[in-house]
């Protein structure tokens, strides 16, 4: 599934539509601690978090996530929205808890339905 397909699925509200939306989503990653996310977020992941400050955008960009999903109704602060705009990073939002939001994306990824994560 590409970022564009996730945007089009209307699963989540669109906070900012970024530049590289044709990019394939490789996996889903959940973490709110930026220190951990920086070292562990896989390239191309859809990153589900409640941490919405400007540094979230920097981490997403540098760790090369494909998009960010703000869960639990968490909002990006104003500066972070500007940064998302400026850097062309796709950000979506949802009222769903992190696990449910991540699971919904995971179920849409190819060949991963019902597969256990080891």
């Amino acid at each position: 599934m590409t970022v564009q397909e996730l945007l089009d699925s209307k699963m989540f509200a669109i906070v900012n539509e970024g530049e590289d939306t044709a990019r394939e989503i490789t996996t889903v990653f959940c973490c709110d601690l930026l220190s951990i996310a920086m070292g562990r977020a896989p390239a191309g992941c859809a990153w589900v978090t409640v941490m919405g400050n400007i540094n979230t955008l920097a981490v997403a960009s540098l760790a090369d996530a494909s998009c960010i999903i703000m869960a639990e109704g968490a909002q990006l602060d104003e500066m972070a929205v500007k940064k998302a705009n400026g850097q062309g990073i796709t950000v979506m939002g949802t009222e769903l808890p992190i696990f449910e939001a991540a699971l919904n994306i995971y179920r849409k990824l190819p060949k991963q339905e019902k597969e256990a994560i080891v």
Partner: protein
Amino acid sequence: MNDAIVLKYQISPDDFTRAGEASSDVKGKLKQLGISPEAVRKVAIAMYEGEINMVIHANGGEIVVEITPAEIKMVLADVGPGIPDVEKAMKAGYSTAPDEVRNLGFGAGMGLPNMKKYTDDMKIETTIGVGTTITMLVKL
């Protein structure tokens, strides 16, 4: 080497809104140069961690990035307080970051371990009260 590209950045202290700008700029330039996405990601992560450390702990500093066909060298130099116990600081989870930094989602004690993990070589030179210079290499 003759064909080295050298980039220099001044890192401002205590400015978390700008932390990452230097790393983002390097990332963009490496991409333009056609460096492999994997190497770009390694440099971006390692340099960002170093940049954040300089903002949190060291009153800012200077980062010099040298790009050659063989490798990317990052030298992060500060005139901060120095690291009293490098071995401890290298341990995942060990942190001396203040609460306001933790509230931003940092300060989990992963910075130096991440820098080591994402580079092929890392050297720390530190003197208490004088400063710290970290040299990192990513081979191409």
